[in-house]
């Protein structure tokens, strides 16, 4: 069975490009625009990985991540941060909160993101 990925990203084109890329690789993809929507979807069904943006309308990605890690049902789901915030403080905060990795959008291509996702899922 193919892995299920939840993409939480508010920028429509970025969301489309990365979802397309994931679907082309055979993953099942669900999308969320806001943090709250993302958390609701996570509670409804099980995902194998969450791709998380940080600056989101409403509750931000850090808060979403903190809630995922607090919830015993969800805490084992790997979260990969994909954001354009890239200051050391933010990266450290994301990793400390329990993200498996932190990618800066402007520094990676969609194929590189997919490589990372494959590696995480293979663990």
């Amino acid at each position, binding site marked *: 069975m193919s892995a299920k990925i939840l993409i939480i990203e508010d*920028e429509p084109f970025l969301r489309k490009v990365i979802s397309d890329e994931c679907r082309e690789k055979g993953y099942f993809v669900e999308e969320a625009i806001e943090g709250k929507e993302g958390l609701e979807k996570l509670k409804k069904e099980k995902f194998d990985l969450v791709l998380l943006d940080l600056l989101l309308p409403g509750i931000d990605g850090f808060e979403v991540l903190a809630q995922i890690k607090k919830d015993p049902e969800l805490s084992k789901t790997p979260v990969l941060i994909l954001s*354009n915030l890239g200051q050391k403080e933010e990266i450290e905060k994301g990793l400390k909160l329990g993200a498996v990795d932190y990618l800066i959008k402007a520094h990676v291509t969609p194929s590189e993101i997919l490589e990372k996702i494959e590696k995480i899922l293979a663990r």
Partner: protein
Amino acid sequence: MEDKNLIRFKIALEKLPQGIIILDERKRIIFFNQKAQEILNLREDFLFKEIEEIKEIEELKPISEIFEKEIFKIFGKEIKIKEDLILRLSTFELKEDQEEIGTLIFFSDITREVSLERLKKEFIALAAHQLRTPISAAQWGISKILEEKIGPLNSKQKSYLEEILQTLQRLVKIIDDLLHTTKIEEGKILEKTQKFSLEAIVDYVLSLLGSEIAKKKINLEVNKPFNPLPPIQMDVEKIKLVVQNLLDNAIKYTRESGRIVISLEERSGKEILFSIKDNGIGIPEKEKERIFTKFFRAENAQKVEPSGSGLGLYVAKNIIEAHGGKIWFESKEGKGTAFYFTLPIII
């Protein structure tokens, strides 16, 4: 005559653009000037009051707390008096023959500077993020087209898209440089240092820029000593950035089929010397003095590469100096440039 001089001193203190308060040995206010009165709303009846009484006055609370503790140890400290009043304050002990006879306190109102500085930082961080997002969208879309996931491309379409993608990457680099510059100006250069090998950093940067070197058919020579060099205490990401900036420049400002030589050597067990020499366009004599200045770009460099930020060398110099090293160069216009930096070996 002496009286007249005393009056001169008094007027000078009175008119100083900084706030001045003088305390006696019992920490009673014996003098304040116009500026101090203006900034802190001091009144004549505060004079000669005991510290206990001063503490009761609401607007003097933050200041009287300073009177009480660590009063002699303050130099250029930022003190928030209230929401819209921030002072930079220093104190100075007044002594006569070893005997303490009072304290001089001087300060200025830096509220405006502090808020401007904060605005500037917030603006840059936000601008960096807001700029990166549309650039990422373009980058991602173009990379997908380039990988021919959407459909086949002819070679001309491919080369155009590659150029566009590179332009976007340069734009990202400029934004990154700008962020590094803000960090430097906040005094936050070295964030996490660890022992690391400079050779490994050179290898990493070469792997990063290898395709650029190959594309320009540059003849690259790397000289490392036979025995591995001792590790250096460094902020790894920052030193990577320095080596990357220097190699980036060498590649950019060297003609096709040019030559770049990178060398690493230990100097008398005290430091490691890194050098990178090219036979590129060189730095014009009259512009040499300004080469490490923020935003400065040499005229001939602008012709070769119109879109640089002029921040790479400024950032490099600040990083190397924060590590206790030195950075310099030798250059002849039209012949080439050699950049050098040293990093101290700390055992």
